[in-house]
């Protein structure tokens, strides 16, 4: 008897929750349908999931795990794609397919971490600047002006040049040069909302300002921020690969796509496969994030057309 009454309470609690959230549940269902109607977005999502699986299970998928992690294999240098090495071997005889599979790890880790940190810094700052307005807003916006005056990759390159080449420094550099974009984005939303009746009502009722920002401003900025994040993950992958390409990021013998292109650069006219496949991998993954970002934009931020 006791169990049945307990299950009844949970059940009624669940149905209660459903009644209260029916509208947002319907919306989610509708949004999901809109997103999955965009074929390119679905293709992008599949590619991203496959890449994540590839990165996580690299030791089990890669045909030559040791070479994927950097062990050289000098008696098989410069082999063109063949049955043993589907994508050929590089100047140290390492299997390129294995290195591409291992190479998926760094871009994914860098881009997800960096984007998360940028959002954590940029979003609250934008919310505060836009909501409070006045002097705080002026100061924050002038600071973002200065940071945005540098093309972000230049700022990143300069930072890494002084900090010294490494993946960690690449991540710091990208964060430093990128956060103002989110501050701008969220500030715009906050400015447009701060005079709305429900926000003013919350304020007059004595709700703490930071709580008002958290409850009423940030949720409304969520859509544009998620869309921007998805598109930026792709851009961050490109930026990190570019820094590795000029020797400022991942260091040999790490498998990283940008570095692999750089290693293949000098052989490109004869042993074309060394640099080509790594670049193709970057291209496809970034393309996938862009397609998903576009699809999400149609769902979450319908006002901005693409």
């Amino acid at each position, binding site marked *: 008897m006791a169990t049945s009454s307990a299950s009844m309470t949970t059940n009624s609690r669940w149905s209660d929750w459903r009644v209260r959230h029916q509208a947002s549940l319907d919306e989610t269902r509708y949004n999901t349908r809109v997103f999955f109607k965009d074929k*390119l977005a679905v293709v992008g999502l599949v590619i991203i999931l496959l890449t994540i699986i590839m990165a996580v299970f690299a030791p089990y998928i890669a045909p030559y795990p040791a070479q994927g992690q950097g062990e050289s294999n000098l008696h098989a240098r410069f082999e063109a794609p063949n049955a043993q090495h589907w994508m050929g071997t590089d100047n140290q005889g390492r299997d390129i397919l294995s290195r591409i599979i291992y190479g998926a790890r760094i871009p994914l880790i860098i881009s997800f971490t960096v984007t998360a940190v940028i959002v954590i810094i940029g979003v609250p700052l934008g919310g505060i600047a836009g909501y409070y307005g006045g002097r705080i807003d002026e100061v924050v916006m*002038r*600071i973002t*002006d*200065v*940071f945005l*005056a*540098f*093309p972000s*990759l*230049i*700022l990143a*390159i*300069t*930072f*890494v*040049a*002084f*900090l*010294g080449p490494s993946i960690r420094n690449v991540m710091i550099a990208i964060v430093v040069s990128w956060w103002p974009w989110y501050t701008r984005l969220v500030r715009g939303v906050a400015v447009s909302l701060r005079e709305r009746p429900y926000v003013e009502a919350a304020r007059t009722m004595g709700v703490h300002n930071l709580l008002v920002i958290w409850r009423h401003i940030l949720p409304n900025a969520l859509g544009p921020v998620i869309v921007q994040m998805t598109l930026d993950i*792709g851009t961050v992958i*490109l930026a990190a*690969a*570019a820094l590795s*390409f*000029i*020797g*400022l990021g991942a260091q040999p013998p790490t498998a990283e796509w*940008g570095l692999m*292109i750089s290693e*293949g*650069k000098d052989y*490109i*006219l004869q042993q*074309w496969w060394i*640099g*080509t496949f*790594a*670049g*193709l991998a*970057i*291209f496809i993954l*970034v*393309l996938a*994030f*862009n*397609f998903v970002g*576009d699809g999400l934009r149609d769902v979450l931020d319908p006002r*901005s*057309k*693409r």
Partner: protein
Amino acid sequence: MTIWAYVVRRIALAFLVLFGVATITFLMVRIVPSDPAAVYVGSNARPAQIAQARRILGLDKPLYVQYAIYMKNLVKGDWGDSLRTKRPVLQDILHFFPMSLELIISALIVAAIFGIVFGVATAHRKGKWIDHVMRIFSTGGVAIPAFWLALMLQIVFFRVLHLLPVAGPSDILVAQAHPITSVTGMPVIDALLTGNWPAFTDSVRHLILPMLCLAAYPMGVIMRMTRSSMLEAMGNDYIRMARAMGVPPRTLLYKDALKNAFGPVLTVIGLTFAYSLTGTFFVELIFAWPGLGQYATTSVLSTDYPAIMGVTIMVATAYVLVNLVVDLAQALLDPRIALS
């Protein structure tokens, strides 16, 4: 606010930003762990030599004095000497910049022409197959790593098709037989100005691949922007009214809608200029193009910090100026911007 008040405010803001740029660049060198004096004397120096270098570079003075000296020199045009080339940094930069500028400007012109034409075409045929193909195309332009595209272009146009030179700004034999007299520092323009036809065709042939490479990203962005602002403009009541009254679609598309779509497109062209400034770093590296990008990457790899600072300030200045021009042009096109 009248339009002139806006112009003055916008210019003042640009100066404020440049001041901030110089300050951040200064701070960046001071807060990082590496010691500029140690870099200056090289890796095998004795402590006494480092101390001496510190005095020469003025690093023994308090930070605010260093900052004041740095700002004064910057304004005077004394940007320090490059540790690597031993020449004044500003002189180096002014020597290499025109080469990059030629690349960037030609790339942006190509990107703007094709981006706008394709953007209009896809907006006109929204949802048709050409729209989908072009979406893949424009997203591809944004997603492709420029340094990889460079290598692919080299394979296709040099190795396979034997159509274009693989790298460099000119052919050695042509350069020796028909040397270009430097006027602006941009070879194509200079050859044109001096009527040096063999050098002109040679320079153009060498320009094509790096230019295409640099144009891919801006073209993708401009195309998307043109398409979306065209669609927005086409949805306006007055356009629908005009269509209902029988104004031919072609006139509507190119005269009325495009005029309205031009503002946002102009902004995007300004923004992609920033991309091109950095994109040229990688493109120049691969195409052995003796411009600012190659100067910058070699400086970065040898921790030539006066040169790195100089390039950073130069690039930021160019970017701020371009955005200023774009903003002012937009305010003149659409006075509502100045008023808001």
